């Protein structure tokens, strides 16, 4: 709704520092995220990815440095920032006792939108949850919860979405479904900042990748730029074997429910 409010980077982070008591988690983090792009913050467990996301979504205050989202300062205009963002936290933050539809209606009501029922039904359809819409979320699978979680974040079309480790704990199929949803989002002009510890996830999704290590961003660039940091590729001939993921997805995938001979080697 406020997509064209500011030019330049939609997320701007400079010199961000944060300590928990003695532990210095962030020691001067700088990065910018361009509008409509997918930016991946990569790092191992405890690198401070979630801390960055929490500061940007106004859940934590930084000790030093500045951060702005959609041209709004997270420290001085937190209420306005919250109007521009959605947070999908590390664990699917859905209400287990409510149904999927009720979860969506609740968020639509809290965003003060007209016709929450229709918004909920549209999102259920878009995330293939229509059949499960009336069921309690406690009966959902991990992938369905995550999809509902992301659907809840889209209500009100916020220009910036934070996804904190969106595929942690998901099976490969659910992971691909989530990836698909994220790509669609960026396709519609939403800026996505995602954190992940899976390198292939960043590789698949992100326009730019930054690596957070020991409280600082140690590299920041496109995948191609990052690859150039290593010695040039040398040509080797390697037999192309299917990965276990290829095998798994072929066997259990949606289009594999007819009677293929599953014992035969499929590496053509």
């Amino acid at each position: 709704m406020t997509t064209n409010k500011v030019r330049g980077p939609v997320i701007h982070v400079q010199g961000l520092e944060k300590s928990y008591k003695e532990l210095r988690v962030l020691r001067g983090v700088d990065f910018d995220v361009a509008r409509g792009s997918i930016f991946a913050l990569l790092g191992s467990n405890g690198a401070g990815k979630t801390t960055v996301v929490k500061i940007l979504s106004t859940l934590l205050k930084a000790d030093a440095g500045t951060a702005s989202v959609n041209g709004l300062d997270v420290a001085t205009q937190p209420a306005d920032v919250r109007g521009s963002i959605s947070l999908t936290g590390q664990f699917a933050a859905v209400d287990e006792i409510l149904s999927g539809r009720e979860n969506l209606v609740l968020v639509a009501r809290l965003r003060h939108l007209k016709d929450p029922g229709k918004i909920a039904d549209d999102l259920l359809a878009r995330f293939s949850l229509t059949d499960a819409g009336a069921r309690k979320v406690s009966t959902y699978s991990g992938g369905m919860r995550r999809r509902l979680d992301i659907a809840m974040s889209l209500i009100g079309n916020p220009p910036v979405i934070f996804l904190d480790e969106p595929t942690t704990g998901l099976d490969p199929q659910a992971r691909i479904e989530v990836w698909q949803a994220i790509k669609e989002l960026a396709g519609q002009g939403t800026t996505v900042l995602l954190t992940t510890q899976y390198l292939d996830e960043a590789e698949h999704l992100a326009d730019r990748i930054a690596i957070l290590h020991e409280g600082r961003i140690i590299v920041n660039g496109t995948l191609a730029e990052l690859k150039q940091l290593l010695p040039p590729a040398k040509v080797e001939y390697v037999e192309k074997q299917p990965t276990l993921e290829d095998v798994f997805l072929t066997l259990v995938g949606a289009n594999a429910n007819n009677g293929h001979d599953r014992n035969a080697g499929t590496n053509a």
Partner: protein
Amino acid sequence: MTKHFFGDTTALLGRSLRHITRSADTIITTTIMPIAMMLMFVYVFGGAINTGSQSYVTYLLPGILLITVASGIAYTAFRLFMDMKSGIFERFQSMPIARSSVLWAHVLTSLIANLISLVVVVLVALLMGFRSSAGVSAWLAVAGILTLFTLALTWIAVIPGLSAKTVEGASAFSYPLIFLPFLSSAFVPTATMPGPVRAFAEHQPVTSIVNAIRDLFTQQPVGTDIWIALAWCVGILIVAYAFAMNTYRRKIS
């Protein structure tokens, strides 16, 4: 954002009330303990306790009602703790809503759930022979005291709900509150207790609250007890609210 405070609180209240209607077991577990105590004291120990002219169930009910609230607010802490743990609290806090409505929805839910439990316990007491000649104004006064008491204890419950590390930690705080009526005039007249115990019993909040409610039920002049009771409730409410808001501010900043 505060212009949405009532709308947001209503939306979130609707959500947590669904938690109560969909897990009615919380109302049952909240009321079963006080009802069991009431049965035991009336039909087992009650015969040996001399409370003067009143029937023992009438004597006992005010204390049982306080125990009902004390065990009920453990669920308030539990529900809040689960919201913190599941991340839905953070989701709400990162949305453009009146932030404090998240807390107020829990407080109002606690109030409603406890009032339902109190009605259930009073109905059981009526079956067991509790009778009161109290008029409408006396019943309203009782409802007022119990509401104030519930609010005070609810704000106490908010503190562990926000800050506990484990489920057990979130509800363990209620055990001493459940125990407190035993060291008061709730079960036996304080005059029968040895010196130091009696001194404690007569100067802790439960005794004055129990005495005030009992006097209202039995149409006795309430005297100063009701003012001491109200002072305790308001005092606990203010202190608990201040600590709870302090804990809350540390959580959201």
